C-alpha cells in the first residue's frame, strides 16, 4: 500500500478532524457549520448505489456550489416539513487514495440513525462517502463529496443531509 503510506500524517489528522466535525455538525443540528466544511465551488451529491451500479446519473440531492447547500439548509429550516427527529452519524475510518489534481481522495463508510422525539431509533441509511479534499493551511475542506447510499429505499423522506 505505497499510496497509503505516502499520506502525510498532517493530512491524515486533518481528514480525521474533518470527518468527525462532519458527523457531529449534522447530528447537533449545526447545518450551517456543516456547510462551512465545503469550499465555495464544492460539489455535493447524494446518489443511490442502485443508480451508480447501472451507470445512471440520477441524483437525490445535487448542489454544485456552496450557495446551493445554504439554500437547501434554509429551505429545511424555514420551508420544508419533515419527520421530526435527531440524527446520528457513525463514520468509519477513512481510506486514503493519495492526491489527484491537488485533491486528497478519501472514502469512508457511514451509518445514519434517526431517533424520533419519543426516543425510538431506526437505522436510516448506510453507505459510503467519496470525497475530494483540499488542504488549506493545515485544514481539510471538501471540494467534492458523493454520498453513495446503499439504502436507496429512503425510509419516509430525506431532509437533513447525509
Amino acid at each position, binding site marked *: 500500500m505505497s499510496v497509503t503510506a505516502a499520506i502525510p500524517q498532517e493530512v491524515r489528522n486533518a481528514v480525521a478532524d474533518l470527518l468527525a466535525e462532519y458527523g457531529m455538525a449534522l447530528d447537533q443540528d449545526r447545518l450551517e457549520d456543516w456547510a462551512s466544511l465545503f469550499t465555495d465551488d464544492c460539489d455535493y451529491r*447524494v446518489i*443511490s448505489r*442502485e*443508480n451508480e451500479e*447501472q451507470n*445512471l*446519473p*440520477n*441524483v*437525490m*440531492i*445535487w*448542489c*454544485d*456550489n456552496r*450557495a*446551493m447547500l*445554504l*439554500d*437547501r439548509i*434554509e*429551505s429545511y429550516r*424555514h*420551508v*420544508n*416539513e*419533515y*419527520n421530526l427527529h435527531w440524527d446520528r452519524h457513525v463514520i468509519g475510518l477513512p481510506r486514503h487514495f493519495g492526491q489527484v489534481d491537488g485533491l486528497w481522495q478519501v472514502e469512508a463508510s457511514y451509518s445514519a440513525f434517526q431517533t424520533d422525539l419519543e426516543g425510538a431509533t431506526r437505522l436510516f441509511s448506510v453507505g459510503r462517502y467519496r470525497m475530494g479534499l483540499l488542504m488549506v493551511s493545515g485544514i481539510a475542506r471538501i471540494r467534492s463529496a458523493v454520498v453513495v447510499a446503499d439504502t*436507496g*429505499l*429512503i*425510509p*419516509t*423522506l*430525506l*431532509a437533513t443531509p447525509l
Partner: protein
Amino acid sequence: MGFQVDWERSDYSRIPHWLYHDEAVYRLEMERIFRGPLWHYLCLEAEVPNPGDFRTTWVGDTSVVVSRDRGGDLHAWVNRCSHRGATIVRKVQGNATDHVCIYHRWCYSPNGDLTGIPFRRGLKGEGGMPADFSPASVAPSKLRLANFHGVLFGTFAETCESIEDFLGEFGTSMIRRFMHKPIRILGYSRQLIHGNWKLYAENLRDTYHASLLHEFFVTYGVDRATQRGGVKMDARHRHNMNHAYAASDTQEEARAAYAGTAGVELDRMRLRDQKLLQYIPEFEDGMNLAAPTFFPSSIIIQINNTLGTRHIRPKGVDQLEVFQTLFGYEDDTPEMTRHRLVLANLVGPAGLVSMEDGEAIEIAHRTSASAPAGSSSVVEMGGRGPLRDLAHRVTETPIRGFWSYWSELMGVEPEGGVR
C-alpha cells in the same frame, strides 16, 4: 366474500378510516383491483431496449418480469417458479437468454415459458417426472401487455377494455405528449412510506394540499394555486390530471390569496442560486406542471423540466414504496441533461417540493389507525355530490372519483353511488 362498507354518503365525501387499516380489505384489493379487469403500469419500454433485456416490477404485491425476447417482442409474466413458488428472477434488471430458478434449476425463456426441468426423464432410467407431465400446463401466469407509445401496461384479466379506452382522452394525449420522441432513462429513486397505498393514491388526486403542504412551491413560485390551471378527470372519474401553466399569475395575486394562511409566507426568502427555479419551455402546450394520474397507482409527472413516472407499490396494508423513474430525451444536449438532474433536487425522497408527502401520509396513517369505529375522513373541498372537472385546483373531487371506481371494482358501491 361478505365484505361491506358502511358508507355514510353516496358521494364519497366521507371515507371510513378503517378502509386504510384492514388486512382483509388489502387482500381483496390485490385480487379485485391489482389482479382485476384494468390496466396497470409496469415500466417504460426504454428500460428494456434490447433482446434479452428484463426488469422486475410489481403489480400490487405480485412480482412481475418484463422482458424482451430474441425477436424483439415484449412479455410480462409472474416471477414465481411453477415448481415451488420461489422467486425466479432475483435481480432488478439485466439481460439474459433465459431465466433459471436457483432452487431446482427450472428454466424459463424470456417470454415466460417453462423450457427446462432438470432430470425430467430421470437418471439412467430411474425417477424423473411422469411421462404425461405437461410443462405448459404449469407455466407462470402471463399478463397481457400493452405498449402505449413506450409506456408499458399489463393486466391479468383475459378480457377488459382496450388500453386506449382505459386511459381515456387526456390519458392517451398526455402519454403521446411525454413520449413524442425517444426518451433516455436518467435513473431511479425509491421511498418507503409507512402508510396504506391508498393514502398516496389520494395524495396524487388532492391538489388542495399541493400549495399548502409543499411550501417550497409557493414560497419560490414554482407552483401556486393562483396560477392558471385545473383538474381534469376521465369520464369514469378514476384518473385525473393536475396541470398548471408557467408564469400565469403575479406575485401580487399570490400574496393576496395566501394572506393570513398560517405557515405560508411569500417574499420571505430568495434562493441564492436561482437555477432550481429555471424553466426551459419544452412543450407546445405551455404547461410547466402536468401530472396525468392513472388508477390505481401510477402517474407521469412534469414539474418544470423534471420528467418522470411514479409507481406506487403496496408493501402490505401499512407500507408503500414510491418508485420513481426519471427520464429526459435522447436528443437532450449535455446542458439540458445537467439541468434536468439539477432540477431532480425538487422531486423524489429528498425533493424540495415533494419530501413532505412522506411525512403527511405517515401521520395520517398513524393516528387514523386508532380512530373509533364509524369515524371517517372529510372530503368536501371542491363540493359534494356529482363529480365535476374544475378550472381551479382548490379541490379534492378526484379523491371522491378514486373511491367511486374503487368501490365499483371492490363490489361495494353504496345505493345511488356517484360515478
